[in-house]
């Protein structure tokens, strides 16, 4: 038994390095997909201290809106623009109906409020566009090809690339635009930001809108794989370990966390899964994150928690 | 008031050559002093002198890199703060550290935590020994409440109390533990004159009636000189003076420290 757990899997890896490389690459590509979802959480947590559980449903809502519009004959480019507009309107609504009325509440109350919000969005999305599964095809190629024994899929590479672009854009946005700097200021200290005249409410609207757009990208990528349907909102659960591993407040953390979780769970599932009867990757991701947390309670890139009396 | 009628006893706590640093900054640098039984010791010094750090070291919240602490003659090494509490060291905090969600009475009852031994199974029944224990400790807390004259706010959540009363409740919580050594971190900060007078009276009465040893940090020199038996002065993490209030008052280095003479 010990041999099976501690030695055999490594022999297995060494035995077929090409396959191992493929596992790692697939893990990395999957990790980027997780990061896409985790990013939305991070943005909102950073700027408003809200653990936005509705992010998963926002992904669903954005994708549903896009597909719904396309089903009604709206051309893809227009549907994309309209969806972005709708996400902005949504962010405005959320700020007006919810956030401004819950200022200064404890984190857990805000967290619960976002779960309430997720119910509303779910109901709204399904009322508007129906509960049936919808195929999402915006013309991303998805043929597979082999490179020195490693099978790659165009779609996965495209998704990873768009993830990378998205992160780059966000980084530029945060560092080189006026709004971005204001965002960072808000993230550091709400009160201080307010006192130097940064309009907190506007910032919140912007952040939720940006998170909505990130959700749209995530929704397109995941929706293309599974069709757009209710289950799309459940990918939030795959993003949570990424989130705690990378830290709630760090954009790079979401990326690195995603990569670690992606590779970790794939390697675990393929080399150790069969020993335990398979399907271990879901809880393994959480346990992996948990182990990291025991050494760094604030996540890899989270802000250090200092305790004083 | 300053007339010393109490019997000052043997050394209760001795700190020896304590050095504490955060990163490269020395908060305390080779500090040694003693606290004798039944006395009121004041620790003073300018901002950043390491006073609060000293208290944190004494009750085990910070762990000094160097030096020893001996309580009742027994030397101790690294330990968790609750061990200090078990030995009989209680304290109040510079920024009030009350349990905001609980009532005054419950806050003071938490001070009795270590005196209550019944297991949670008895507690779940709230009957027999557990009830008896609860009532006995409640009686003690009521004494503390009477002593501090806060009967009227017994059931008020402490978060709703004004600052001065919160300070008093915090003192009550510390007293409820029947400490051997009571550490008070700026007990009078932010109080008006009347409140300060009340607080002084409580401190002296505690010392008088229960014989509790007290170490306090305070900025108000008038108060310090009035109530303390002995004064330790810290500056930039070093001890620069130690003696009776009058002796300290006359110490040149202390005056320099307070006037901000440069340290080169």
């Amino acid at each position, binding site marked *: 038994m010990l041999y099976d757990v501690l030695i055999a899997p490594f022999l297995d890896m060494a035995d077929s390095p090409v396959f191992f490389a493929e596992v790692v690459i697939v893990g990395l590509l999957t990790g980027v997909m997780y990061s896409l979802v985790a990013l939305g959480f991070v943005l909102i947590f950073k700027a408003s201290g809200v653990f936005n559980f509705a992010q998963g449903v926002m992904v669903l809502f954005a994708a549903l809106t896009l597909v719904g519009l396309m089903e009604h004959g709206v051309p893809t480019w227009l549907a994309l623009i309209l969806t972005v507009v709708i996400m902005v309107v949504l962010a405005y609504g959320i700020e007006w109906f*919810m956030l401004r009325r*819950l200022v200064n509440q*404890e*984190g*857990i*109350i805000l967290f*619960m*409020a976002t*779960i*309430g919000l*997720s*119910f*509303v969005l*779910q*109901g*709204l999305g*399904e*009322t508007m566009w129906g*509960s049936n599964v919808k195929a999402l095809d915006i013309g991303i190629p998805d043929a597979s090809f082999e490179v020195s024994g490693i099978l790659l899929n165009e779609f996965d590479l495209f998704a990873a690339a768009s993830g990378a672009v998205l992160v780059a854009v966000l980084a530029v946005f945060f560092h080189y635009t006026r709004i971005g700097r204001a965002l960072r200021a808000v993230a550091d200290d709400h009160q201080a930001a307010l006192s130097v005249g940064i309009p907190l409410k506007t910032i919140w609207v912007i952040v939720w809108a940006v998170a909505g757009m990130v959700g749209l990208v995530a929704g397109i990528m995941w929706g293309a794989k599974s069709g757009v349907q209710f289950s799309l909102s459940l990918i939030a659960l795959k993003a*949570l370990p990424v989130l*705690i591993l990378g830290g709630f407040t760090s954009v790079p953390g979401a990326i690195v966390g995603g990569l670690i979780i992606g590779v970790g769970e794939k390697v675990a599932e393929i080399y150790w899964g069969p020993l335990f009867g398979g399907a271990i990757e879901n*809880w393994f991701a*959480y*346990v992996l*994150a*948990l182990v990291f*947390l*025991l050494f760094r*309670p604030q*996540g890899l890139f989270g802000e250090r*928690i200092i305790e004083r*009396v | 008031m300053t007339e010393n009628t109490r019997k000052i006893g043997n050394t209760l706590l001795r700190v020896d050559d304590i050095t504490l640093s955060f990163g490269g900054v020395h908060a305390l640098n080779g500090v040694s002093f003693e606290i004798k039984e039944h006395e009121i010791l004041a620790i003073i010094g300018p901002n950043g002198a390491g006073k609060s750090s000293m208290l944190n070291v004494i009750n085990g*919240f910070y762990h000094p890199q160097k030096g020893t602490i001996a309580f009742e003659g027994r030397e101790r090494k690294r330990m968790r*703060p*609750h061990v200090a*509490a*078990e030995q009989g060291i209680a*304290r109040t*905090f510079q920024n009030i550290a009350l*349990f*905001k*969600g*609980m009532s005054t009475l*419950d806050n003071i009852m*938490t*001070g009795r*935590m270590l005196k*209550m031994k019944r297991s*949670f199974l008895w*507690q*779940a*029944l*709230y009957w027999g020994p*557990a*009830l008896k224990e*609860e*009532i006995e400790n*409640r*009686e003690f807390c009521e004494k503390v409440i009477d002593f501090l004259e806060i009967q009227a706010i017994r059931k008020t959540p402490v978060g709703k109390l004004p600052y001065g009363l919160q300070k008093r409740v915090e003192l009550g919580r510390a007293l409820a*533990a029947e400490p051997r050594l009571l550490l008070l971190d700026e007990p009078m900060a932010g109080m008006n004159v009347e409140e300060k007078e009340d607080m002084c009276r409580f401190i002296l009465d505690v010392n008088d009636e229960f014989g509790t040893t007290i170490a306090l940090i305070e900025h108000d020199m008038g108060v310090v000189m009035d109530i303390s038996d002995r004064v330790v002065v810290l500056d930039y993490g070093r001890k620069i003076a130690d003696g009776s209030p009058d002796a300290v008052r006359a110490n040149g280095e202390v005056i320099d420290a307070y006037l901000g003479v440069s340290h080169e």
Partner: protein
Amino acid sequence: MFYREAGQFKTSYAADQTVFPIVQDRWGVAAMVAIAFVGVPLVASEYMLQAVLIPFLIFALAAIGLNLLTGYCGQVSLGTGGFMMVGGYMTYKLTTTFPDVNILIVFVFAGLCAALVGFVFGLPSLRIKGFYLAVATLAAQFFLGWTFNKVGWFYNYNPSGTITAPPRELFGITITGPTASAEVRYLVVLCIVAVFAMMAKNLVRGRVGRSWMAIRDMDIAAEIIGIQPIRTKLMAFTISSFYCGVAGAMMVFLWLGSAETEAFDINQSFLVLFMVIIGGLGSILGSFLGAAFVIITPIILTNAPPMFGIDLPIDLQKHIEIMLFGSLIVFFLIVEPHGLARLWQIAKEKLRLWPFPY
């Protein structure tokens, strides 16, 4: 006018420390208990018992369990479903292995198993705090779900992997299994919940409760006055999981009759957390109010449109129900973030002064 405490003097600390110090409250509670034990079983329909009251009580117990941990000790947990699962599966395993042991004793042992599991998954709380801990407890949720699905021993290797409550008797009356009547099951649940709720109330008003609240309000200060965070937090996790475990056992044996791991999925954990927060963190009464809100509101919302003769397509009706439920949650959090228990308290204060508010 009638709700006054003037003239009621306490002559001992014991009297002052009772749960309901006001005489009118005691009468009110006595009446409630009488209705719950005698009135309801006589009057309520099977639908009412099976679909409303039994789940309400069971979830109230789970909510009390989570409230001990989250409301009193300040540790957010999303592993409730997992701990309930332990209770349910262990009850099945124990009662099929020892069919002659009284089922109530089995419940307690199953609760203890859950407590042990809770203890283990509580260990990270020593280092991890806040939302990091909340997400970390999801590890318990997913791991336990996987375990009970995968390890055949827990469900006696039956090919489907579901557990079914076999018939068990108490004083010669069948209380579990399909032949147990809804009234009997309701009464058993009510008794268990009443006893455990009382015990929880006792815990939180005594030393243990104060140590939990101290950790919740300011863990550093608590440690300095002599409360050991490790022991206190783990005790909260353990006792909380015990409650959840018993609730899970009742869920399978006194309500659903059979279950697979999906019955205890993550939604369950969220649902119980809702109850705790909507009801009021740090309030035993709040756990009941929260459970009532979360269980009963959707049922009312489902049944309301047909009652008023509105005939909506069932999916639209459900969507509206979901949206309304979500909005109500947000609404309540905005109106009173301290939960229904606080609203109740405010109402009582008002009533105390009524009709002369000054």
